[in-house]
């Protein structure tokens, strides 16, 4: 299991790096947890990458989870249909 932190504020400017970090983590480990506790909010590009990572992990029969979300991020996930109200999906 690998827990991943993203040191900068995730956004379009560093989205490529975020993508590559997650991708290599998934390749290396069977279970990856992306800890968002140091993120205040996300932008659409990072949400897309997280969603896409989940598809990637599923295809490889691996596990990809996110943790440490604040309320604002939970709300953002809801808006993007990544989460339903009231919990992770």
């Amino acid at each position, binding site marked *: 299991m690998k827990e991943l932190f993203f040191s900068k504020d995730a956004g*379009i400017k560093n*989205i*490529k790096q*975020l*993508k590559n970090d*997650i*991708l290599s983590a*998934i390749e290396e480990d069977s279970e990856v947890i992306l800890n968002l506790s140091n993120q205040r909010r*996300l*932008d*659409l*590009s990072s*949400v*897309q*990458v997280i*969603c*896409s*990572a989940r*598809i*990637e992990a599923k*295809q490889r029969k691996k596990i990809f989870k996110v943790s440490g979300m604040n309320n604002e991020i939970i*709300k*953002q996930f*809801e*808006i*993007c*249909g990544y989460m339903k109200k009231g919990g992770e999906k």
Partner: protein
Amino acid sequence: MSESGIIEIFQNEAREILDNIENDLVVLEETKSSEVVNRLFRYYHTLKGSSGIAGFTSISEFTHSLESCLDLVRSGKISITEDLISILLQSTDWIRGTLFEGGIGEKYDTIKNDIFTRLEVIRSGEALPVSVVADKIRYYRIKAAFAENIFEFGIDPLIVMEDLFESGEVVENFVDRRKLSMLSKLDPEKCYFSWRVVVKTAKSIDKIKEVFLFVLDNNEIIIEDITSEYVENLDEKRGEKKLGDILVNKGIVTERELEDVLNEQQKENKKIGEIIVEKGFATPKDLNTALGIQDDIKKKIESNTVRVDTMKLDNLMNLLGEIVIGQASLNRISEALDEEQGYRLKNALYGLDRITREFQEQIMSIRMIPIGPTFDQFKRFVRDMSKQIGKDIRLDINGKDTELDKTVIERISDPLKHMIRNSIDHGIETSEERMNCGKDSQSVISLNAYHQEGSVFIEIKDDGRGLNYEKIRAKAIAKNIISKDDEVSEEKLKSFIFLPAFSTSDSVSDLSGRGVGMDVVKSNIDALRGTIEIDSIKGKGTTVRIKLPLTLAIIDGMLFRVGNSTYIVPLLSIVESIQPKKDDVKTIKGKGEVVLVRGEYVSLIRLYDFFSTSADHTNPWESLLIIVETNGERLALMIDDLIGQQQIVIKSLDSYITQSSAISGATILGDGSVALIIDIHGLMSGLKNEKVIE
């Protein structure tokens, strides 16, 4: 079925619908709820259809125009104003008139034309841009498909969507993520997501458009007002969601599959069932099972009731009365039999008695109907009256589900109306007066009903100025009921309100309100064997509390004999029976004959005198006294002998037969003779009135 039968059924149906319409109109004025608009629309629609079938074409046509007017309200083209509600309320009057009073002639034509003209004015005046009617709840469907390269412009669509979610309640949110690939193949600098959202909000469509102000160019943003369509389909949608749930519960489809289906459904306007079968999540057979379950659920909700003609219920009650009388005569026979056989018959009768009591309770429960509709009818009354006299009054209704005997409900309506009118007219101050004493400018009248101790209580409460005891006192002095120097308690003063002498008062309005017709109210309540009391706090308001018996037709009674006649007193009124000592009976000036009972002097009534018959004894200490009580006051009735207690079927006596308030009815005894039922409350108030008139 005969034609008159159809008409009658229609009239009954229409009466109910009209009541519902009136209610909902008043509710609509308050809440402006789109759900209520839809309900109203359906009512008008039903009324239109069935009046056509029953041959009331004029009503059918009339309702048609109301229906189309409602449609304009629904689509937001007409806003809900006081004016509109007034016209619609007036239109229900017209329909009533036409339906139940013939409604032909110039008067009705004039009213009809007037309604149409006023509707037309509203219609034409309101043909304003949609943004004006922004104070109502609307549903908007927003399709937002962002350009792939939107990030290059420094725009984050998520912020836009967050703004949209802030603009109201999101009732549907579908995110199309199909363009998104797996991470290894993803170009993360492009936008893949698009949305289809339904927002419920009071904001105007322009306000919604503002959210997308910076992304309107190059992106596909479509905003539609779908209020009418959405609300119409909502019921259906709910039904279908349930179908989905049933399928999941039955393990036919997984939740995940169901979600796919629901998403699919939002793109293509297909039935859920169709999509499920198309996708191969379930076989048509499974689907039918689920649909069957869904139908069953609906049926369970809808059809567990049967309409019964109330005449049939009354007949049933009468028949039960006959059974009770029959039982009483069997009981009599058992007395005459030899000991062993008498004992056996008595035992059998005891069992029968238990069943008849149970039977009676069951029938009574059928006759019980909730008071809700009676309360609801006052919504319009309060609205109309308060508008008319310019007071701002809200009607609060509680205990709608409290059930009362049908007859009681029918007879309680007028007294209630009377008391509400009193409150509005006199009890409640004008808005300015209220502001001056630091009260909320809107006053509240509340109606409440509840069961307690085997009785039903109905309360009418206002937060008005309360009773003005000084003025009641002054009035009582003017009416020669009390003299200037009399010390009279507030309790006593309140009781004057119910005197007929008081109600004929010429200037009631300066009597702080209550007065007109309260004696009529009281006699109505008395007729139902109920009691009425008033609580009042000066400046805070008045509460009128009515207590009514649960059942009307059968009571437990005590039979007793005076000379050759048998009389009955309700068992509930009896405290005890005593044989007085000679020294305990006195005559007190102004009070008449009294007897000392447990340290208290109680008025003595010589029943043989009262009924102008003869008695075995004329000396109270040789006779028996039964002590009865009502409203905390006691009387001693002088009788010859107690016979025993039994269930009594009350047969009412037409008022031309006797003017006496002391007789609440008659019953037929086991031996076939008729016995009169003494109403203690009526007896007491009769005595009081006599004293007052003296």
